[in-house]
């Protein structure tokens, strides 16, 4: 089978994700790699709905819904409980959106990282509060339209650098990935599964309604984010430096990525050049 992906499914059909949702696809394959010995901790995010309404569930692994700000803290509790039950082999995965990670959940996240809690924290970043109808989060990139940034997010703000924040905590494992680049994605989840300690995976996860793209283009557009250097695929090395795991396979200008999405409609041509420079500099710093 393709990339040795198991045919076992831990995500059930009939879940409540929008068509073409990157977050549902990412979960499907994350769980395929992590396997049935996994417990998922889920704060408020799109996935709170995707997971299915009571008394149904979209996952065939244990799943705990928790309040918005508490993913990392609840996951800590689950992990410690497993330790005391002698179930150390079970993977605990906190699965949060960008709001629950970059914003309201950041404190608990920092605390868990500082304590070196032994679990995997995955942020599926779709770059806005999509579940509540596309409001700006601190993960929303500069220039992006949301319902609370009707003219596009100010260029002075841009996207919070969660990677640097996490890097400063020196986690056991720190990577970016996207299901649009599956081999890298699968390899990183496999590596994360083997590690012990606090692990963080930052996923770029396309949202067709929020990005204003056709559902069938969601993965192609996400690949443009990688190919343009807007979302570099990186990994923290032993020295604490972030390094590219994949060079952009088919490099394209940032404009190609932005112009493929309706949410960047208000970005003017003259905004592109400084944006491109920032992206290039950042990409270069990972080489």
């Amino acid at each position: 089978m393709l990339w040795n992906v198991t045919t076992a499914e831990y995500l059930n059909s009939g879940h409540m994700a929008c068509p073409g949702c990157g977050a549902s696809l990412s979960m499907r394959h994350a769980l395929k790699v992590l396997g049935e010995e996994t417990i998922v901790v889920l704060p408020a995010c799109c996935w709170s709905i995707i997971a299915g309404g009571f008394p149904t569930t979209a996952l065939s692994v244990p799943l705990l819904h928790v309040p918005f700000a508490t993913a990392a803290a609840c996951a800590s509790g689950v992990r410690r409980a497993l330790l005391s039950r002698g179930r150390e082999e079970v993977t605990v995965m906190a699965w949060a959106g960008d709001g629950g990670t970059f914003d309201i959940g950041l404190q608990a996240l920092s605390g868990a990282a500082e304590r070196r809690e032994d679990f995997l924290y995955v942020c599926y970043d779709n770059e806005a509060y999509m579940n509540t109808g596309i409001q700006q989060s601190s993960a929303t990139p500069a220039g992006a339209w949301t319902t609370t940034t009707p003219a596009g997010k100010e260029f002075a703000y841009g996207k919070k650098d969660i990677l640097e924040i996490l890097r400063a905590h020196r986690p056991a494992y720190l990577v970016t990935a996207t299901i649009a680049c599956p081999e890298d994605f699968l390899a990183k989840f496999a590596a994360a599964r083997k590690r012990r300690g606090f692990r963080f995976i930052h996923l770029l996860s396309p949202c067709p309604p929020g990005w204003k793209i056709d559902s069938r283009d969601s993965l192609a557009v996400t690949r443009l984010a990688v190919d343009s250097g807007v979302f570099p695929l990186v990994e923290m090395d032993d020295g604490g430096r972030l390094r590219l795991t994949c060079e952009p396979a088919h490099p394209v200008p940032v404009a190609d990525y932005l112009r493929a999405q309706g949410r960047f409609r208000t970005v003017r041509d003259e905004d592109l050049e400084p944006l491109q420079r920032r992206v290039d500099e950042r990409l270069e710093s990972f080489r």
Partner: protein
Amino acid sequence: MTSQDPVTPARHVREMLLGSDAVAHGVRLCRPAVVSAYPITPQTHIIETLSEMVDRGELPAEFIKVESEMSAIAACLGAVSAGVRAFTATSSQGLAMMHEILHWVAGARLPLVMVNANRALGAPWNIWADQSDSLSQRDTGWLQLYGETAQEALDGVIIAYRVTEALRVPVMVMLDGFIGSHTMEPLFIPDPGLVDDYLPPYTPVDYLDPDNPLTLCAATAPDSFYELKKGHARAMERAFDVLDKTFAEFGDRFGRRYAAVETAGTDDAEILVLSTGALTGTVRVALDRLRRQGVPAGLLKLRLVRPFPRWQLRHLLTGRRRVIVLNRAVSYGAGGILTQELRAACCGMADAPAIHDVIVSLGGKEVYPETIEEIVVRADELSPDESVWRP
């Protein structure tokens, strides 16, 4: 009218401890697998002592030293969901910060015990005894037990685990900040074997287990939500019975008898004084003096605030002239919180006594027996329609 002079049963150790340390010993005897807490005055001694117990191996638990109260209770939420017994403790602002998660833990119907050292909420800053913190949380779906002494705090923790695991309703055990937590007094530490018999190892049901996967707390449509909440409310009604039985069994095994509403000198009392927490001791002294002066006053000590023991209270109030409710928490614009509770409980009662609302102390304001005596003696002058604030 004095509080119980505990008969010394076998297999107890008599000790002299701070209220906080008494809590820690209670927790140790219940063998939680996970403890998670964040320090806040006046709860700090509890977690300091628990930390030492964990370090010394007396309490083989995972201690998660989190970065906030929200995370403290959230870590417990995770731990209990994953099938173990857990514990946390907090106070005041910390409890307020937990507010959202308190609802979640209760709605998830997780068996969890926490101790709250009652303290005022700012602004302005104040670290002293006040029940505004826990009484603000009375609608979160937790069972609330208030204790008078260090012994009650210790015993309360053990009883709370029995109750919470029987009902799947979380239990909050209160002791007053400083007056309860920082006072050193004699008590009995039960023998661990005796506690193990009373509180067997936790057997989780419907927890996060890869061998039997399930989902907890999924989004719920209005109809189902309504049904679940109805279930929660029913569980709270069952709590009276469960608590009675648990208290009774505890009394049989440990020699100390508790009740949701405890009384002293009520048989012939025309005037009742309703009190909670450590304040009650001082009230006992005041009522003793009054009775010696011929004032027919009796004590109602409220141990259980949620669920509110309304039928017991109605029964106890029948035929009395007046009841004075001593409050250490106010609902601004509505008076003392316990007074409102009692009034609601007595609503429609044919021969209800006059209910006097007294805001006796806030933010640690000292209460002497003389204060209580004066309030009782002058009760005739008070209008039951007004809240009384001491001069």
